[in-house]
């Protein structure tokens, strides 16, 4: 078990005749002592809130005293128009952002694969959006999305002879505009992970394929893409979960507007919890979101196992 320690006898452990046992117990004690800060912080700021959220989701929370309402909160969420719309928007945003960043990330990774020095520069530059603070990115894009023809993106569209778009200001385009910004920020991340995956592809397979006279497309289709499959699933899971729980982007860009057209689950939960004081319903929404992310992760794991088998 533990490596025997040759340090001087510890003064605090329980006395025991047999040395190995004492040493082992001492090792366990030390291990838990080193883990204690992390465990206490996790307990207070992750697990207690989690269980408190679960409890609250079954109650109507009032100053006078909480009232048990069973599954009413969940029922109200699933039948409420605002909530179902928000769930739908969250899913749309998650799907759009995930697919967009994965595809773009893969294409860009293939384009800039290689050891050249200037490629390293392109990579570093392209990666900057990932490390920038979300709130700043959102403010910058809000300005760029300005609906008048003086707005930056509209000016660029104008060069191409396109009409100015309302972007965030219209019910029809608000969600798409948020998606555009999220893809911009998510693509470089996916690109970088794909690049790391590409490094692991067996080079001798490329040469063998070349000897057999395979085209670039065939090489891509039968060697590169299958090799990237595990990376793809990880990125898919990460992006989908991030998409479902999106908050800052929407909160800063539109705060759910105009007219609720870009309201997502988290902004609605935030409004219900902190502005309307509907803590029970807001908690139930959080639990549903948690179940959705859990389901998604398990589903992806199952698909991966199937594919591997």
């Amino acid at each position: 078990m533990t490596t025997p320690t040759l340090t001087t006898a510890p003064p605090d452990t329980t006395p025991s005749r047999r040395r190995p046992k004492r040493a082992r117990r001492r090792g366990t004690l030390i291990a838990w002592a080193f883990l204690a800060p992390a465990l206490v912080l996790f307990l207070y700021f992750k697990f207690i809130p989690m269980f408190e959220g679960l409890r609250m989701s079954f109650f109507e929370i009032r100053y006078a005293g909480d009232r048990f309402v069973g599954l009413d909160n969940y029922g109200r969420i699933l039948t409420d128009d605002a909530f179902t719309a928000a769930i739908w928007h969250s899913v749309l945003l998650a799907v759009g952002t995930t697919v967009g960043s994965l595809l773009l990330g893969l294409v860009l990774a293939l384009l800039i694969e290689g050891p050249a020095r200037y490629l390293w520069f392109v990579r570093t530059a392209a990666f900057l959006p990932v490390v920038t603070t979300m709130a700043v990115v959102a403010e910058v894009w809000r300005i760029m999305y300005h609906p008048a023809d003086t707005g930056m993106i509209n000016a660029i569209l104008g060069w191409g002879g396109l009409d100015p778009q309302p972007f965030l200001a219209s019910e029809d385009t608000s969600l798409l505009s948020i998606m555009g910004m999220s893809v911009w920020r998510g693509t470089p991340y996916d690109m970088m992970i794909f690049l790391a995956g590409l490094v692991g592809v067996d080079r001798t397979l490329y040469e063998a394929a070349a000897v057999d006279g395979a085209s670039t497309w065939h090489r891509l289709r039968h060697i590169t893409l299958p090799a990237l499959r595990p990376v793809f699933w990880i990125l898919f899971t990460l992006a989908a979960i991030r998409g479902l729980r999106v908050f800052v982007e929407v909160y800063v860009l539109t705060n759910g507007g105009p007219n609720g057209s870009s309201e997502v689950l988290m902004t609605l939960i935030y409004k219900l919890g902190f502005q309307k004081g509907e803590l029970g319903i807001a908690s139930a929404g959080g639990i549903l979101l948690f179940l959705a992310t859990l389901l998604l992760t398990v589903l992806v794991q199952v698909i991966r196992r199937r594919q591997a088998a």
Partner: protein
Amino acid sequence: MMRFDTALGLEARRGPIATTLKFLVYAAMVVVFTGPLVGLLVSAFSRTLDPTSFSLWPDGFTFDNFVKAADKNVYDYLLNSFVVVGFGLLLQMCVSVFAAYALARKRFRGMTFVMLIMLATMMLPEEIIAIPLSLVLSDLPLLNVDLIGTYAGMILPVGAWGFSILVMTEFMKEVPVELEEAARIDGAGELRTFFTIILPLCRPALGVIGVFGFTMIWDQYLLPLIVAPQSDMWTLPIALRSLRSDEEVGIGVLLAASLLALLPSIIAFLAFQRQFMRGLTSGAVKG
């Protein structure tokens, strides 16, 4: 014989048309991904600002926006941000290093359970527990302390981070056991071995968890939003929203403040690029 170092074999194509096309693609990538950030940089120092858009060409260089920012308490928000990220990161790194030491170097009862706890916290997105967390923070169970409106309320919840602990654990497993045993034979105690043998060998990993922790804490939004209801405790990212619609100063102050909120994470990334990429790939690929 052609060489096949990359999937598309673009490196091998060297004709004038191929080269031009390649460089057009690369230039487009750089412009698209850095353009908005460069625009922010230029406009923050620009004199006359169109309130609706920003310019990629500087229109008179000025520090005006940064001077006016002082009237809007931007530097107080920046200071709050630095206090939170400074103490938060210090706490987070200490907690991670201690926990990783136990997980990597000790074998003890309950270890699988602890690993499960770590993974569970990484699975649980913090957005989801925001509402109950605000209640827990306003009245900590057993301790009955109210952390709303305090720095501690923004620092303690980021103190333990599963990602950081796991990266550190993986790294510590690589440190040879012989070194530790040698130190023990020399009579070094547990803490001494930890601080003089293990920790110095883990310096590269400290860089990784340092730069990731920094970006993670600097990027916190929902947490300060629920902890700091009064503007005197705001961090810079959540203060940006309030600087938006100012009739007299336009978007100048907003841009200056945005730039100030952006620079630390960009600098941290550029300075610790190698560590960043390393943590990125190890975190995601091992997943």
